[in-house]
């Protein structure tokens, strides 16, 4: 049984590196490279978000705040001090996201459920409004353009492999986290917070930890994205950005570790395909979302696993550690 999980893990990583490693070699077009880069970054963002929602049960509607923070750290530093500062700026983004998320986290974890959701939304919107408003510093609505990574990173393919590496490391870290004692406690918090308190653990403190960790990776996603799109703008802070990452996680399946990644890939491809063909994209995305929530609430990956489980004699073992983090 343990081997089964190990094989799955190996298969995922093999597929991950083969698919994403080969894209730049097979595709002459720059566009697919960028598309794949978006999938990588959003996929990591969605997985980090799912640490909050799927694992710990905290639906934050404000992760765009940290995504934007990561992007603006890079944008502002590159604009003001030159492209040499690109990499330190990513670090600065991570640092500031950590600090801000500790501060805001202390305020928002005091409430739970919908209150938590709305409070995170409120903070996200506050920062969006400030960015929008502080025209002379942030560029306001116009955003910041010409964010070109320095040196060889300016090459799209090199930058692609750079993100691939960072994303892979991030996913690996998150993966380890989920299967670690801390991950176990976080899962337990979602299922039965009172009992966790009775294990002598601080529920709030654990919630704060995962809020900070999740925000850290959101900021990394934002910083990396600035280098892909070469321009940033306050929309990155807007609540619809948070909504998008939620949508990705749900479509892929919040009960599955890799679900959100698949969800991100799907949404980006759907947006690309549908957006290019109809102006009624929001209708279509809305309908897809409705179907997912009503009919396939476990997300694509979750539902597929459930289907397979039905035909497998050892269905009972699906809770085996390593394959999923919830049945």
């Amino acid at each position, binding site marked *: 049984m343990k081997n089964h999980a190990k094989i799955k893990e190996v298969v995922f990583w093999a597929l991950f590196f083969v698919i994403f490693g080969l894209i730049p070699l097979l595709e002459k*077009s*720059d*566009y*697919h490279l*960028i*598309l794949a880069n*978006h999938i990588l970054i959003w996929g990591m963002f969605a997985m980090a978000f799912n640490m909050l929602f799927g694992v710990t049960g905290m639906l934050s509607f404000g992760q765009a705040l940290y995504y934007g923070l990561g992007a603006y750290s890079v944008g502002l530093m590159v604009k003001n001090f030159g492209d040499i500062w690109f990499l330190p700026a990513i670090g600065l983004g991570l640092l500031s996201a950590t600090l801000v998320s500790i501060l805001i986290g202390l305020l928002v974890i005091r409430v739970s459920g919908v209150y938590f959701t709305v409070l995170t939304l409120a903070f996200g919107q506050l920062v969006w409004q400030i960015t*929008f*408003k502080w*025209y002379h510093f942030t560029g*306001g*609505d*116009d*955003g910041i*353009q*010409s964010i070109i990574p320095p040196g060889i990173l300016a090459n799209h393919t090199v930058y692609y492999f750079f993100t691939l590496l960072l994303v892979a490391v991030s996913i690996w870290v998150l993966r380890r986290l989920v299967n670690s004692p801390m991950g176990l406690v976080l899962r337990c918090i979602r299922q039965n917070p009172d009992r966790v308190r009775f294990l002598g653990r601080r529920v709030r403190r654990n919630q704060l930890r995962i809020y900070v960790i999740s925000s850290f990776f959101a900021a990394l996603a934002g910083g990396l*994205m600035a280098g892909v*799109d*070469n*321009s*940033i*703008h306050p*929309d*990155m802070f807007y609540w619809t950005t948070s909504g998008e990452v939620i949508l990705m996680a749900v479509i892929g399946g919040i009960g599955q570790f890799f679900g959100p990644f698949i969800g991100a890939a799907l949404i980006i491809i759907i*947006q*690309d*395909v549908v*957006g*290019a*063909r*109809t*102006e009624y*994209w*929001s209708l279509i995305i809305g309908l897809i979302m409705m179907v997912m929530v009503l009919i396939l609430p476990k997300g694509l990956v979750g539902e597929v696993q459930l289907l397979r489980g039905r035909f497998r004699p050892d269905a009972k073992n699906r809770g085996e550690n390593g394959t999923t983090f919830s049945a």
Partner: protein
Amino acid sequence: MLKHKNLTLILLAFLVFVVWPFSVSAQEKIIKIGAMYPMTGRPGLYGLDSVDAAEMAIEEINSKGGVAGYKFEFTNTDSKAKPDYSVMVAKRYITQDKVHFLFGVVSSAVGLAVTEVSKQYKKIFIGTDHASTQLTTDKLQPYYFRVSNNTFQSMAAGALYLKELKQTKPWETIAYIGPDYAYGHDQWDELKYNLDRFGVKYKAVGEYWPKIFAPDYTAFITSIGNDKPDILVAGFWGGDTVAFIKQALPYGLLTKTLYFHPDAGGNYELMSAMGSDLPKGLVLSARHHNNWPDTELNREYVKKFFQKTGRYPTYAAEGAYAGIYAIAEAVKKVGNPDDTEALVKAFEGMKIKLPEDPDGFTSYIDPKSHQIVQDQAIGVTVPNDKFPPAKLMLGEWKVYKAEELLPPKEYIDKLQKK
């Protein structure tokens, strides 16, 4: 069984839907245009009008056999008015769909993001409906051209109008209200700059910055009422103008003070949305007017647009229409749509007769700033029901010569320093 069949059908339909557009690749020589107009939400109307007008221009040109043996092919992707998504679309257009020209965009933020892509990939970007002066000054790059006025031109014309007004109706105080983002702030800065430049004495008694798309302006209106300015300059666009005027009317604000809205206020959507509720005597302008200039070309253009769509165009439409004709002109000169550098040369200094040109003037693209240079007319709302559902249109025109409206060199230097 039945369910399975259904599923297969849906899948097939989807495949056709996805694959079909690719299969229409033609043998003939094409000029591919990749447009990025928003079709949703507040700016959706501008996108809709622009796409219709661009398609209209293309039909006209294609039905006459195209240019230099090439026919136009036009695709629009709903940009959702989102810069990051538009960047993706622009990159897809360039590297996947191999378009010859990037085209369109309503919001300046999207324009700034797309011009960046245009610069990187050396692909010409024709701007039709975003007004930020930056695009043709400090953020100018060799592959960008704009075929509609920027806010500086509108505000220069506005300043001249206010200068003349002093002679007939002495005024002293002025207040401004505009949306709280770059577009709103730029207009006010540019108006003040131009007033100073033309030596107009004024006293600013209030500046107000409602959020863009704010639903409620009551508090602003009563506050402006308290400032009692002689002139109220507005910098809204679209539905915000409608909401502001509707809410200001019963307060009598628009009779006590002169409502002056020179960039987007005179857009047809305001007249059509408000009908007979629109008060007389507002001083407005826009980048194109359905009833000015009274030339054959403009009448024809408006009539055709109405026949095609069943509604009268907003100024956004004329920008897109002009954009297509400018491209046709450039391709005609170069002979093909592929030689980007030659096309750039062709655009620089290009002269082109457009619906909004009065008799005796031809629009041209300034070779240095890549900005189209046009006359601008400012009018006053007067009864006119020739363009229903509007009951008032602009009249009593004052026309300003194109050359007077260009930003002077020191202004551009100032922007570049920023």
